């Protein structure tokens, strides 16, 4: 294996690791929601909404959500740029597909780790451990990642000037962005309303069809 090929595999590992770790916390927290609810004495309605708003207030919560969004939001553009820079066009779709594996894998890892940590330590410490894992992964990524040799001079010469305008003026990018808006809306509507539709049709409190589609929310469904 050539040095370049070896480096590409390292970059792919960094990309997948970053995508995985970034989702351990966000997707792991719902797994310990019942512990948080018991500890803070929240009702089901309160637990179903943003938990922290009851303790931090909406202003602080918005600021924290903004900070978390800036951190989490940079992940996809950065990892996609890395995939585009290091891999030839023929391999990019596969690399982006592998990158996306990190999302459910991070959720699996979070759902396995967070309850164990919360029961052993405390749910607050479980969240701290999740956050520290993300910070450690960010430091590791920053220290391991390098732009490919052929890409670095191009990036330095071009800088970022003009790129935003170029993207905003692109008809094709706006078409794809609009399509993602439609598909994201559809996905959310399916998740939110399919169970309700099934429930209305069967007349049962929590139909079998609804239970299949909403199995992660089975506990919430059974309490209705």
């Amino acid at each position, binding site marked *: 294996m050539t040095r370049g090929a070896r480096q590409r595999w390292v970059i792919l590992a960094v990309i997948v690791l970053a995508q995985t770790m970034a989702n351990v916390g966000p997707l792991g927290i719902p797994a310990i929601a019942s512990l948080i609810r018991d500890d803070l004495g929240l009702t089901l309605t309160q637990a179903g909404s943003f938990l922290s708003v009851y303790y931090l207030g909406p202003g602080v919560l918005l600021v924290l959500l903004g900070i978390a969004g800036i951190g989490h939001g940079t992940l996809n553009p950065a990892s996609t*740029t890395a995939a585009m820079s290091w891999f030839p066009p023929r391999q990019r779709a596969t690399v982006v597909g592998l990158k996306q594996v990190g999302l459910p894998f991070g959720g699996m890892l979070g759902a396995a780790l967070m309850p164990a940590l919360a029961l052993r330590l405390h749910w607050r410490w479980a969240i701290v451990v999740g956050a520290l894992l993300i910070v450690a992964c960010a430091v590791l990524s920053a220290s391991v990642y390098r732009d490919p040799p052929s890409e670095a001079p191009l990036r330095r010469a071009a800088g970022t000037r003009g790129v935003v305008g170029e*993207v905003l003026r692109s008809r094709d*990018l706006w078409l794809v962005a609009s399509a993602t808006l439609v598909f994201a809306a559809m996905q959310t509507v399916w998740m939110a309303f399919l169970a309700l539709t099934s429930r209305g049709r069967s007349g049962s409190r929590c139909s079998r069809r609804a239970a299949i589609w909403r199995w992660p929310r089975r506990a919430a469904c059974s309490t209705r």
Partner: protein
Amino acid sequence: MAELAGPRAAGTAVGLGLAVSPLGVTLGPPVFGWCVTAAGGYRGPWIGLSLVMLAGLGLLALVREKSRF
């Protein structure tokens, strides 16, 4: 989007997608819920949603993609 923009603008293009798609996540469910209330049932809104998805696919059909292989 990254492929359309090329390596130099890939991050910015993905950022554009990430900025636009949450609007659908935020607006989709309340609009659908309002449609269900207005229609008095789910049948019409589900059919409408499938037509919206077809419109989304139609948007993708208009994209001029260059062969990159």
